[in-house]
C-alpha cells in the first residue's frame, strides 16, 4: 500500500497539504516543549539539559519501529522509501559545520525558525546566517563540487554494513539510546544550572 505518494494513492499536492499540517504541528510541539530557547538547546553540549538528545532519539526509534512494523504487515514497501544518499566526506564536514553552528548559535535550522516565529532576535540572525551560508554554497558551488560529491557510497544502511537483520539493529539502537538517555539524565544531575 505505502508509500502513499509513490503508489499514487495521494497526489503530490495532497502531500504538500499534509506536510503543511504536520509542519504546523511540529513547530507547535517544538515551541511548547521549549525548543525555541537557545540555552535549552545548547544545554545538550554542556550536560545541563539533554532534552534535545532525548526528543530526537525517541523520534528516530519511533520511526524505525513504525516503519518495520508497517513493512511486516505489508503496509509499506521499504524499497520505495527515500533514503538520503551518502557522500562520506561532505557528510563529515557538513556535520562539523552544523555542530559548530549549533554550539555557537544555540539553534538547529528548524528550531531557529521556531524561535524567530515567537520574535527572538537571535533566531532571526541565525536564519540570516543560514541563508548567507546557502548563498555562499550555491555561488561557490564549482569550487567545492568535487569535494561535495567525493566518496559516494550509495545508500548504505546500518544493517547492511553490519550484515545483521533490521530487527537486531533496531533492538541494538534502542539499547544504545536507553543507555544514552541514562547518561543524559546522570549529566543533568551532575551539571545542574538553576536558570537558563
Amino acid at each position, binding site marked *: 500500500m505505502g508509500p502513499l505518494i509513490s503508489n499514487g494513492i495521494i497526489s503530490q499536492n495532497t502531500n504538500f497539504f499534509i506536510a503543511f499540517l504536520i509542519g504546523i504541528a511540529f513547530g507547535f510541539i517544538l515551541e511548547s516543549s521549549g525548543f525555541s530557547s537557545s540555552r535549552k538547546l545548547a544545554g545538550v553540549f554542556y550536560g545541563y539539559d539533554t532534552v534535545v538528545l532525548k526528543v530526537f532519539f525517541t523520534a528516530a526509534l519511533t520511526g524505525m519501529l513504525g516503519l518495520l512494523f508497517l513493512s511486516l504487515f505489508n503496509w509499506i514497501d521499504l524499497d*520505495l522509501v527515500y533514503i538520503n544518499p551518502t557522500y562520506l566526506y561532505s557528510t563529515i564536514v557538513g556535520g562539523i559545520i552544523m555542530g559548530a553552528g549549533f554550539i555557537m548559535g544555540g539553534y538547529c535550522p528548524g528550531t531557529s525558525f521556531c524561535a524567530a516565529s515567537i520574535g527572538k532576535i537571535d533566531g532571526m540572525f541565525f536564519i540570516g546566517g543560514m541563508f548567507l551560508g546557502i548563498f555562499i554554497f550555491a555561488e561557490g558551488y564549482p569550487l567545492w563540487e568535487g569535494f561535495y560529491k567525493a566518496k559516494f557510497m550509495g545508500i548504505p544502511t546500518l544493517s547492511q554494513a553490519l550484515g545483521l537483520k533490521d530487527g537486531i539493529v533496531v533492538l541494538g539502537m534502542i539499547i544504545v539510546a536507553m543507555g544514552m538517555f541514562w547518561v543524559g539524565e546522570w549529566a543533568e544531575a551532575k551539571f545542574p544550572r538553576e536558570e537558563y
Partner: protein
Amino acid sequence: MKPRHFLAIIIIPLGLIMAAIPQNTTHPYKLTPAELLEHVNSGMQYFTPDETADMIINKDPSLLLIDVRGEDEYEKFHLPGAINIPLSALLDEQWKDYLNQDIRFNLFYSNSTVNANQAWMLTRQLGYENNYVLQGGLNYWVETIVNPTPPESTSPNEEIAKYDFRKGAGMALGGGAAVRLSGSGQTAPALPKIAPRPKKKRTEGGC
C-alpha cells in the same frame, strides 16, 4: 516513574519483537483470488488465432510471441518471430524486462492453453501488464489457420470469408495444405531490443 522508564517499558519489548521475528521479504501478489477469477472468467487474456495470424502477417511490431514450451519443442516448430521462454525459466531475471513492459503485447502460447495460461497467471499476479494467451494454443492454431476446415456450402457469408482468410493466412505463414511441423530452415529470431521499464521512483524527501 520517570518518562525514561516508561519509554523503555514500551519500546524495548517492541524492539525485542522486531528482533525475534523474521524479516519480511515477501513481495505481495497484486491480485486477490476474486479479482483473478474475474479476469479468468472474462477471458480477456485471449487472442484468437485469427487476430494473431493477422498481426503476424502484417508484421505488427507491437506483437511479441512467446513460446513457453521446452527448448526442444521450440526448435522443432514455432510460430514466426516467436521467442522461447520455457515456463520453467519464466521467473529468470533475464526475462523480467520482456514480461514487465508497456510497449508490446506479449502473447504466450504452448501446445494447448494450459502452460500459456499458467505463464499468464504468474505474470498477472506479479502485476505485469500486456501479457496475453493464444486461444486454444498451437493445436487450435493448426486446426484453424494451418488446416482450416472448409465450411458447408450453405454456410453464411461470414463463415466463408473467415475460411478464406484462414486459408490465405495459412499459406502466407508457410502452412497451406502441407503442414510443416519440422521447422526446415526455421531459425530462432534475434531477441527484440527491450527498454527496461522505468522503476517506480522513491519519493524524495529530506529534512
